């Protein structure tokens, strides 16, 4: 954790995922669930009804398997989910660029799920249930999930808060550096987390091999992907336009 340059008052946190490195191990999915107190699957849960903030899909490329981790893309000002929420339970934070989800306000109408072009939002169908005693191992920095609300990735808000507190203790102000659980977990170092105000990181996200999902919609996603395999880029076309502007 390190303070960014004093000239930056705000951050634009973003993720750069190297699909050539991702081997689909799923460590990011498990680390995300453990970090954010997402409960284990209910007996009747399916891929359609399960509670995953981050999901790794296997891409059918015809050759060697490729995988694509998909989570909330943390869209920019034109966030589709925010504009449809009747409860103001979705808030874009201009200080971080993170689209926040406030479960206490959410009434579970799921308009946001319908509006999200990335299908990155999931509905929590069940009260959280943990095997007896396992609730002692919940992360103290994150609340338990609650039934009847929509959930999504928030770039590990609990970790951002912790980094902010630490910075305040150290007498620092302004945006902080931190690492979400998935980026920390990735054994292949395929997931990198950074700030688009950081020129070096932004340049990597702008590099010719990088692209964003459904960029043509103009939602301004802040999750970037990179691959050198043409067939992998082709396989992501299911998510829309792949060309990086």
């Amino acid at each position, binding site marked *: 954790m390190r303070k960014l340059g004093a000239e930056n008052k705000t951050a634009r946190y973003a993720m750069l995922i190297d699909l050539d490195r991702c*081997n*689909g*191990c*799923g*460590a990011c*999915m*498990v*680390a995300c*669930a*453990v*970090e954010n*107190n*997402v409960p*284990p*699957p209910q007996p009747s*849960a*399916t*891929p359609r009804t*399960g*509670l*995953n903030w981050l*999901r*790794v*899909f*296997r891409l059918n490329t015809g050759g*060697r*398997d490729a*995988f694509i981790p998909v989570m909330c893309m943390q869209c920019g000002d034109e966030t589709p989910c925010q504009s449809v929420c009747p409860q103001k339970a979705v808030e874009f934070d201009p200080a971080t660029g993170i689209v926040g989800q406030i479960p*206490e*306000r959410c009434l579970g109408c799921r308009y946001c799920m319908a509006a999200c072009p990335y299908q990155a939002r999931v509905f929590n169908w069940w*009260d*959280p249930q*943990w*095997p*007896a*005693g*396992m*609730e*002692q*191992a*919940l*992360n*103290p*920095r*994150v*609340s*338990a999930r*609650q039934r009847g609300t929509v959930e999504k990735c928030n770039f590990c808000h609990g970790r951002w808060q912790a980094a902010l507190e630490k910075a305040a203790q150290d007498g620092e102000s302004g945006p902080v550096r931190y690492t979400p659980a998935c980026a*920390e*977990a*990735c*054994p*292949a170092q395929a997931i990198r987390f950074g700030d688009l105000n950081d020129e070096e990181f932004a340049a990597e996200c702008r590099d010719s091999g990088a692209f964003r999902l459904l960029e043509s919609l103009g939602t301004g996603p802040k999750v970037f992907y990179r691959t050198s395999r043409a067939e992998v880029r082709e396989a992501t076309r299911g998510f829309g336009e792949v060309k990086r502007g």
Partner: protein
Amino acid sequence: MKIDRRDVLSLAGGAAAGLAVSPLPWRLLGDTAIWSQNWHWMPRVPRGAIEEREARCTLCPSACPVKLRMTNGIVHGVAPNGGALCPAGFAAHHLAWHPLRLRECRRKDQAVPLEEALSSLRAAVAQRRGAVAVLDLAPGRASSLLHRRHMAALGGAYLMPPRIEGGTAHAVEALLEKRRALAADLASVKAVLSVSTPLLDGWAAPSSAVERGFRLIQAEPHRSRTAGLADEWLPVKPGSETALLLAVGHCWLKRPEMAQQLERLKGAEAWRQAAEAMPPQRAAELAGIEAARIEAAAADLLGHRPSLVLADGDPVGGPLSREARAAAAALNILLGAEGFRPVPPLPLPKDWTLAEAQSLEEAGDGSIGVLIIDEPWPGVSVPWQLVEKKLARGAVVAAVTWNRAQFARHAEWLIPAPVWLEAPLDAAQPHDAPRAQIAVAPAVMARPKDTISAAEATARLAGVEMTAADEFAALAQAAGSEAAQIGDNGFYWSSEAKGAAPAAARIAPEQWTAETWLRAAAPSAASPAVVAFGWRQAAVSPMLGKLWQESELREGPQQAVLHPDLLRRQGMEEGVLARLMSPRGAWPVRVRAAETRPDVIAVCGGPSLALACEVRPDGAWTLGEAKVVKS
């Protein structure tokens, strides 16, 4: 002043309007949000300062260094500490609360105090001295040394289950001039032919090797995770592995350097005859793939030296046949065993005497009077039939185990064992790196009452005065200054291999003829053939269900994988429940369509899948005659 109905209504309307702009409704909304987070059935998040400790994950031989995040003495987060972790590692701390955790000492269905169980076992041991054995389901640990020490004191036997990971190395060891323990050196090889060995799923070293660009050819009936990530997938028929490996040998026989290498080896004639009788065209017919692909694989291995051939088998599906392992060993011998390196010995206090390490197959049938089973972590898969036949009539079986699902079903005494982070427990030797290690994770959480590790239990039975912690400390002392302390009672020591594998004396086991090889070359006659596979770590935490139940990232326990055409032919649809029928019973499975051979059904299972398997005379086990039928 007269108050009429209009005044009352105005007052009510005004009050309602006023209330709407007052803080009350918002306060109510806010409070409702707080209440809804605090229903009595909602789990309470722990409160307190977060501290970090260092440890090692000892649930597999990789022994990855980890950082533990703890609050109030409970671990709530595991993160890599200067390395990487597998998905199971991130949920490894959940093992303490696993729904299958054995929490009390039992004799069959009756709870008994631990001390009573230990005194009954002591009495049984005294009565049947000489017929006592410990079956170590995770051999190669420092705890295994403790077991051997305790068995030496007791005059008992130390037994290991059939080796799956490292099985090829074991077969190569038997062919050396001077027997040495070997391990695959995946960090330095440039090409690997892997036969049904999940190199990229549960093995640690190959991921870095893949980054280096090593060439992986995976021969396996279904498109496993390793097959999907390999450079080449050879979808061979189940049971045709020996034919494939002999055909690779056939291609190599044309090379003068290989013929020269073969000249000086014992058993060469039998192997040569078998290899000559298995040209790629014949192997291709048996394996159901093109001959050109076999020839290309043979050329690849010689074109990317140093190379390695592995036929260890699947940790859940079981080892490959003895002949397939021997065929892989023969190819490695022709390659000069360049993919293997000798493993240094473990440090040992001078005054320790150890019982000989024996494989379970070597124990005489009906010879064991008292059997202590050490099942320290999830994922150990051995069919009970293999153990049962070694027991004497009326034998006493005690399982010192973390769970009440597998061996606990067969044991008379169930003794709960502490799990990772509850007691100093250690990892096994790596099978994918030529390194000797002792990795003892420190105990950082309180252990439940009445738990005892198997090493502590065998020490008590043998009357060894030292506690397991003291014995670990003695090992750390023997390791000297190279042992690094972890926490209060853990330590890590490792020693890298030096030098190459000793020269080979033989290419085939003694008394093997060409017929021995060729008899085993025919594939399974069943159509569709049912094969088993799995992921050892799947049982570590229910959280791992995210990977197969709440997504389709990988296959998980109780799932069967069929080719879409076969799925249609069987009259089943994706996602339906079916039944795995074997002569040993029926198990529910959920079917999934995936890329696999159209004549194969691959069943993914947990350790209990071994119960459905038939044990063959060579100690390997398969699903054999099993079928998957519509439920």
